[in-house]
Structure formats: structure tokens, C-alpha cells
């Protein structure tokens, strides 16, 4: 049993398979495991979570089943967050309900009232969708008992909502985040704050239908059962994949790094194993790919082994680079005059934006092949809570940037352009923090292209594929192939390209493992 790619989903799948007593080998092309969930020491004394940067979506079921805490995983929840406005205003979100209410009514009494209704509805949508995450999406076009049974279950699950809720859910899945928020809030800053997570990682604007779902995708998280809570993994995001790797070794699996897979071997329509760069051949009855579908089928397989129509759909699968990242080593804690002294929100995630329009304009830049002139930023300083991230008194800051295109309209990326992109971001932050620029010791600037080159995510898309209607549930990744099984016998997909998609969630890995074990139990696929 070979798993290609030691990203968190690959490792999760491997863990489940190893625990089922199978002999599992995970092959990673980089010298370190983790894929996009890593802690890197790129500047002395500092640890960067240089791709993914917060933890929440990781399914509790998985944490328990794989005993991750026992292997060193510790998630520290952080409190609230805030949005910084141009001109010094701010909106903070506190965990303390009364404080939060007071804060929102500063901007609009009405919105403070609506907020509870909003959260209640969002949580209801989460509760509805959660059971779907760890299930195999049924193929609505098939007559197989398994699919019909699953469809029936889905139908019942829907029906349980009751009529009114049912319609709300349908609307929610198809509407734009801006329209959704307009139904609750009047204050621009409140809307803008909420809208942030509806665009993170997607090539859509807050006014694009379907972004309400993306918003939910980021709400689905939970820490020790607290729905919607977010936290840091102690030691950076790498701690998650380290714990997974440890759990894997403990149950008899092996991870081999510096082992880039060049090709997946197929004979007589059956996966045979893989060939590494350098020619070494490793045989296995089952091959599981953690890579996104484009990479898996277009770059590591011989097209002759795949149905033409399938290949066509793979080429059509939309993976769009839209996000950049800055990892900054700071000589001290930057001041943000807008934030009241001692407010906990500086320890949470800080956003920079003013209005929905501003987010939408940032998206317009992306459409034209430019990075956003006024980007949306999601900033965190984990070293305030987790001392292992930076030397005493110094701080590590993670800055997620939306939007940044994979392809620029004015020709390929160059070091100069990357620098210019970085400066745009730093200038934006400096507008809100006078001493920020002087504190910078080192800054790693990552464009979608850098992320692709280092992590191997096509176009550097953090979800391994857009989260749009045409690529969700039974459409993800390819209609008819949403059940983790590739068109080649003995081969499976376990990356975020598959249902339920990206975020450090682990669900695709767990689902894929389940599919494999079902097949092994059942009659051997011919």
C-alpha cells in the first residue's frame, strides 16, 4: 500500500490504513513531511507555519481515532479577532458575549441584535453539513444500491430540517456571501469582517453566488467540540503532521521523505506501484494519491491508462491560484493604535478591510491578472500565545493575502514583482501599525507560484480546487468519480481535491481510507 504525498490528508489516510493492519509506505518528495501543514525554520530562532497557519477544521473524530494528542498535538484556542479599518476604526470580535454585543452596537445596534440570529443560523447550517463531511458522496446518476441508499439518507437528512429550514438551506447553498450578510447586517464593517472568510482561498468575490458556502466552510471548524473556534497548533502547523507521522510509525507504517514519485505504474488497468525520480521502482497492490487531481492524472500517470472523457474532465477541473502569504520575523510586538490596550483580539486573527466593496475590488484586480492593490489580509501573531514560535521578546507573524494571481497579466513572476507584491502587503499593514516596518527582521514572501513549486499544489490553490457548485459533493473532483476511487483499479485519491475539500481537515484522507478498506473487504476489484 503506497500513499503518494505526505500532506495531512495522505498521512491521515495512511494512519487509518496502518491501523487496519495494512503495510503502508508514504512517499514524500520534500525532505520534510507535512505538505502544506508544516513548521519551517527559515530564519534563526523562528518557526514559521509558512503555508496553512491556523487549526480548526481538523475533525475531532480523527484527532481521537488517531490519538494525535498522545503523539504531541496540542491545540491552543485563541480568542476572537478584529478588523482594522482605514482611518483608525476597528471592529473586534470577543468571545465574551456581552463584550461582543457592546462592541457591535458601537457600529450598529441593529446588527448587535441580528448577530445572534446570524450565528444561530450559521451553526444550524454547520450542524446540517457536518454529518456529510465524513461520508462518501452518492452518485445521483447511478442506480447502484449503495448510491441509492446514500441518496435516501441524504433525502431524509434534508427532510429532518423541516420545511422552512429546508428552503433556507437551499438558498444558503446557492447565494452570495454579500447577499447573505445584507439579510442580517447594515454596518459595512460588520459585513466586511464576516465576509472575509468567504473569499479566503477562492477565486471568487463576496458578491459571487456560492461564497456563502465558502463562508460556512470556514465556520465548520471546532476545537474540543466548540463549534467555530479556532486555534494554534503548539509548535506551528507542522505539529499536526508530525503527530500524524508519529501515530503512523507507531502503528507500523513508514514515511520516506526525499522520495519524489515520478510515475504511478499501471498494468492491465490495475495500479502496480510507483517509480521514483532516479528510477527506483516500488510495487504495491494499492496506490493512494494525496496530490491534487491535475497532478495525479496529468503529471504522474500515463494518459493511455485513463479514459479520454475522464482526462478531459480532469483538465477542466478548476484549480486557481488566488492567495499569497507573508511570513514575517519581528523584533518585537508591533503596535496597532486602533486596538484598545490589552484587548485580546490582537492575539486572535486581525483582518484588514473596510467594506464589501473593498473586498470585491480586490477581486476585480485578480480577475485582471494583478495582485490586489488593497488586499484582504488575515494576520496572526501566534508567538504571543505559543512561545516556541519565536525567541523571547520577538514575534512571528503570519499574513495571509487575498488576492494574488498565479499568472500575471504583464508576464511571468519575477523576483522584483514578488518583492513589489510583498511591499504592497507590508505598506498595507504599516498603515495600521506605525512601527511595523522597523520591526521586520526577515520576511518570506510567497506567491501562488512559490507555493506550487515548494508544496506541489497546482497553482498554489490551498483547497486543491475551487469550492464552487460544480466542484462540490458528488461533483468533487470529477462527476462520477467522487468516491475516492480512480478509474484505474487499485488506485485512490485522498487529497483535498476530493469531498469535502480543503482546509486542514483530514476528512478526505479518512474517507478515502474507508473506501479502500471497504473495497478490500468486499470482492477484490478486478
Amino acid at each position, binding site marked *: 500500500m503506497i500513499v503518494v504525498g505526505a500532506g495531512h490528508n495522505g498521512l491521515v489516510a495512511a494512519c487509518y490504513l496502518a491501523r487496519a493492519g495494512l503495510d503502508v509506505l508514504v512517499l514524500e518528495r520534500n525532505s520534510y513531511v507535512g505538505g502544506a501543514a508544516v513548521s519551517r525554520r527559515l530564519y534563526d530562532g523562528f518557526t514559521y507555519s509558512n503555508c496553512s497557519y491556523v487549526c480548526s477544521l481538523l475533525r475531532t473524530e480523527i484527532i481521537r481515532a488517531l490519538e494525535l494528542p498522545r503523539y504531541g498535538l496540542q491545540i491552543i484556542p485563541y480568542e476572537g479577532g478584529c478588523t482594522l479599518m482605514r482611518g483608525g476604526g476597528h471592529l473586534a470580535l470577543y468571545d465574551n458575549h456581552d463584550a461582543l454585543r457592546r462592541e457591535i452596537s458601537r457600529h450598529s445596534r441593529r446588527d448587535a441584535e441580528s448577530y445572534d440570529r446570524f450565528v444561530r443560523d450559521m451553526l444550524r447550517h454547520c450542524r446540517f453539513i457536518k454529518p456529510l463531511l465524513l461520508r462518501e458522496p452518492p452518485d*445521483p*446518476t*447511478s442506480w447502484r444500491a449503495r448510491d441509492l441508499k446514500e441518496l435516501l439518507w441524504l433525502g431524509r437528512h*434534508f*427532510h429532518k430540517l*423541516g*420545511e*422552512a429550514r*429546508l*428552503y*433556507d438551506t*437551499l*438558498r*444558503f447553498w*446557492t*447565494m452570495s456571501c454579500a*447577499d447573505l450578510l*445584507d*439579510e442580517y447586517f447594515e454596518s459595512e464593517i460588520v459585513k466586511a469582517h464576516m465576509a472575509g472568510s468567504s473569499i479566503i482561498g477562492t477565486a*471568487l468575490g463576496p*458578491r*459571487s*453566488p*456560492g461564497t456563502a458556502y465558502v463562508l460556512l466552510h470556514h465556520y465548520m471548524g471546532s476545537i474540543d467540540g466548540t463549534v467555530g473556534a479556532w486555534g494554534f497548533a503548539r509548535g506551528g502547523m507542522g505539529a499536526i503532521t508530525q503527530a500524524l507521522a508519529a501515530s503512523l510509525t507507531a502503528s507500523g507504517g513508514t514515511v520516506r521523505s526525499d522520495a519524489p514519485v515520478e510515475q504511478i505504474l499501471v498494468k492491465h488497468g490495475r495500479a502496480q506501484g510507483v517509480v521514483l525520480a532516479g528510477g527506483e521502482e516500488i510495487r504495491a497492490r494499492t496506490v493512494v494519491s494525496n496530490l491534487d487531481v491535475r497532478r495525479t492524472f496529468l503529471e504522474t500517470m500515463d494518459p493511455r491508462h485513463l479514459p479520454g472523457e475522464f482526462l478531459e474532465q480532469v483538465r*477542466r477541473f*478548476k484549480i486557481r491560484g488566488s492567495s499569497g502569504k507573508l511570513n514575517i520575523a519581528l523584533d518585537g510586538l508591533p503596535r496597532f493604535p486602533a486596538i484598545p490596550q490589552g484587548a485580546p483580539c490582537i492575539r486572535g486573527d486581525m483582518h484588514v478591510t473596510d467594506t464589501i*466593496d473593498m473586498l*470585491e*475590488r480586490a477581486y*476585480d484586480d485578480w*480577475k485582471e491578472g494583478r495582485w490586489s492593490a488593497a488586499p484582504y489580509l488575515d494576520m496572526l501573531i501566534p508567538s504571543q500565545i505559543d512561545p516556541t514560535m519565536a525567541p523571547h521578546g520577538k514575534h512571528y507573524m503570519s499574513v495571509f493575502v487575498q488576492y494574488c494571481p498565479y499568472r500575471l497579466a504583464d508576464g511571468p513572476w519575477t523576483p522584483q514583482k514578488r518583492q513589489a507584491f510583498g511591499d504592497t502587503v507590508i505598506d498595507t499593514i504599516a498603515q495600521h501599525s506605525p512601527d511595523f516596518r522597523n520591526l521586520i527582521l526577515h520576511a518570506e514572501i510567497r506567491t501562488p507560484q512559490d507555493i506550487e513549486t515548494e508544496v506541489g499544489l497546482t497553482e498554489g490553490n490551498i483547497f486543491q480546487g475551487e469550492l*464552487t*457548485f*460544480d466542484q462540490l459533493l*458528488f*461533483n468533487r473532483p470529477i*462527476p*462520477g468519480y467522487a468516491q475516492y476511487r480512480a478509474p484505474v483499479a487499485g488506485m485512490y485519491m485522498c487529497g483535498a481535491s476530493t469531498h469535502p475539500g480543503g482546509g486542514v481537515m483530514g476528512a478526505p484522507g479518512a474517507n478515502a481510507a474507508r473506501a479502500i478498506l471497504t473495497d478490500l473487504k468486499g470482492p477484490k476489484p478486478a
Partner: protein
Amino acid sequence: MSAAPRRAYDCIVVGGGHNGLTCAAYLARGRRSVLVLEAGAQVGGAAVTREFAPGFRVSACAHLLHAPAAVLRELALSAHGLKLAPGALTTLALAPDGAHLPLAAPGDWPAGAGRDAQAHEAYQARLARLAAALRPLLDVAPPRLANSSWAERAALGGLALRLRALGRRDLRELLRIGGMCVQDLLDEHFESPLVKGALAFDAVLGTNYGPRSPGTVFTLLYRLAAGGGAGLAQPLGGLGALSEALAGAARAAGAEIRTTAAVQRILVREDRAVGVVLESGEELAAGAVISSADPKTTFLRLLGTEHLDTGFVRRIVNLRSRGLAAKVHLALDDLPQFTGVAPAALAGRLLVAPSPEYLERAFNHAKYRECSAAPMLEITMPTLADPALAPPGGQVLSVIAQYAPYDLAGGWEAGRQRFTDLVIDTLERFAPGLRARVRGAQLLAPPDIEREFRISGGHWHHAELALDQFFMLRPVPGAAAYRAPVGGLFLCGAGCHPGGGVLGLAGRNAARQVLKEAA
């Protein structure tokens, strides 16, 4: 308040728009005594022919017809004087470089577009198949998803089976592209920006979307399904002629139609609609009140929120109905010379949509309550098929221009002249010398449409056409089956399923619903 006046009619239809008239005709044919109340001096609502410059007449709002054959046949509209311009309406996509593209059979495509021509054939065929499968959805009242009767469940099952009958490949494609943005779909099939622009045009026309907005493939399929394959047509005498024919059909079936009879409010007694009060103060009683006015007008103005629960009111208030399409009418003293366009093509539809990017940029402005700097245009010249609309030698140019948002920043009084000029300049680029021929020009921006045709928001679909405002969600959950939450009150306007465009289907479905339920 006086006691309920004596019941005079079985049904009162509020508004004499094409849906109101259609509904009335079907109700009358169902042996109900029907009274139609139209606020304007002529019937037709937004489907009217008006003089906009001395001697020049034009279809004032909607300017093309895609009435499904069924309605035309069942109401025998031709017998009531409706004549359609002969021949199918052609579509020509104007190219800035003069290499215009007729969207017709692959044979007629310019040599350059070889690959796209082939792709277009397959593309059209597949969309037609999918649209045909969706077509039946437009003819039924949306079934309830829960607490539904066995009949409704059967209907729902029937729909599901019909979709399944598409076969695996088409069904998968439908489920894949149904929520997709039209730009992605077109990129999958075509190379030429002009082809993509022209095909994207129909997907975004009359919507609050650009080609990159998910859900625009759906709006395209909706249009195809609505057209029922027959495509678009131009009634002789403008769309007013259609309304006249509908009125004729309604009267012939026994319906009574009163014009300049504006309804002030709907009478409610013991939580039941029992009639209406006219602005004149006159009270009219009926067993059922059917409103073809848009949902906001119906519920917030005519009915009054005191008769509704807050949740429902919130839904109505949140209903998106901001118009983005403006109408521009030009009175010309001679035929304009469109560079490289054969005179025959002028009788059809001309599109200014050179590329999807052009449309997307046009849409960008709408998001920020601005008019498109370079608008997309649908141009027709009704006078070519119907010279009677203009004085001898004169021509009428009727243009739909997008995007022109209802809530224009700075207001329309300031923006009006600028936008009119912008549209004429855009036309001038394709038809040099056109400006010199203009004898009169009229702009109907969404606020004008709101005022003149009493459609709040000035949106010709009454409520935006979008996945989250369609079928059992249209206009809002709780009123989707043409049935208001108040007894005896029904809806039959474009705000209901299946929506606007000159279809008459909402009126037809509503009539069926009323005949089923109301005495």
C-alpha cells in the same frame, strides 16, 4: 371599516400586464367571473407600444417576445389579432473590427471560426437537450419539499425521473454546469472571444451577474427553456399588440377589464383577502384576489405588513429586485449604416458583446452602483419588419443597455444624459453617422421603469433571476406556489416561478392554482 362589500366577482386580477391578462384569460375560460384592474390607460403593463417621439412608436419596455407556443395556441392569440414578424429572429454579434459573427448554423460561420463552429454545434445540441429536460419545470407550480401532498410528491418524483431520463452523461453534465459560471463553460468549448461574448450575453441579460458569476449557466438554460426552442419573435405593432390580443382573448372568454383603475389596497377581513379598494375609493369584492404586481408592491404596499408575520416580511424585504437594464429608444430619419452588416441582418438582433471580459468589466461597475463605462447592448430595429411604427422613411432603434443600476450613485437625474450619450457613442462606433440621424431619443432607466410600469426596483423579472430565487424559492419560500400566506390572495406576476421575460407562464400556472383552490 365597513363590512365586506357584496361579492361581485369570483376573481379580481390586480394589474393588466401580460401575466395578469394571461391569468385572467385562463380563469375566465375556467368559468370564473373575472375583473382585471389596470392602473394605466392601456393594458399591457410592461408589454406596451408607446409613442416616444412624434410619430415614432416602440415596445416601451420588453421588446422581444418568447411566449411559449402553448399559450399562443391555447388562447388562440392569432385569432385575436396577434401577428408575429415572419421568419426566425437572427442574431448577429458585432465585432469592433467589422468581422461580425452570425450565430447561426455552422455553415454560415465565417471561415476563421472553423473549430468554434463545430464546437458550437455540439454545445448548442447539448444545451438544447438539457433545456428541454428543464422545460417542464416552468409549466408547474413548484411543489413543496416537505409536508407535501401525495400529488405533490408524485410531481416531484416525476421531475426527478424526467431528469434521470436524460441519461447518465447529460445528467452529470447538468449537475456539473448547473451552478457554474458561463465564462468557464464557454472557455471549455470555444476560442474566439467574440463567440464567447455573444453566447455569454444571453446568460447575463437581465441579471445582476457577469459572465464570471456562478449560476449564469443556469440563467442561460432558463432562457433556452423559456424560449422552448422556438426562440424569440417580434410581434407586429410591438408588444402592445400582444397585450391587446391577450386582452381580446380574456374578454372573449368573459373577463371584464377596467383601465385607469389603480388598486390602492387589498381588502382583508378575518385574515382573508375579500376584495380591493381603488384609489378612487371604490370597493370591489371577490372570492379571490390575484396580484400580477411585483411581490414587494403586493405585500408591502397593497396588502400591508400587518397581515403578515415578521419572518415572511423579512423575506419579502430581502427579495433582490434591483433593475440593471435600461432601455434606449432612438427615432432615426433614415436607416443607419452598420459597417459590414447586411441589411437583412438588421431585421434581427444585433449584440454588442465583443468578449466575456468586456461583459465582466461592464458588470464590475454595476457592483459599485455605477453605469458601465462600456455597456453591453441588444439592438433591434422593429421598423424593418413593421414600418407602421414610424413615419414614412423613419426608423426606430430599440436598445437594451446593461449595466444601468437602479440605485445609481449620484442619482439618475445627473446620470441620465451621460448614459444616453454613452449608448449612442457605442452605437456610433459600429454605425458611423448614426448620431446625425437621431431625431429623438428616450432613456428608460430602472427608476423610470419603476415609475412608469409600477415595478419596484424597475427589474423586468420583478425579482432577480438567480438560483436562490428560483422554483420553490421564488419569490420567497412560503409564497412559491402562487399562494400568499393570506387566504384568498394569489400571485401571478413575473416575481413568481418561472419569472419574467414575456412568457405568460406565471399567469398560466397561477390561474391553474387558483382554479384548483379558490371557489
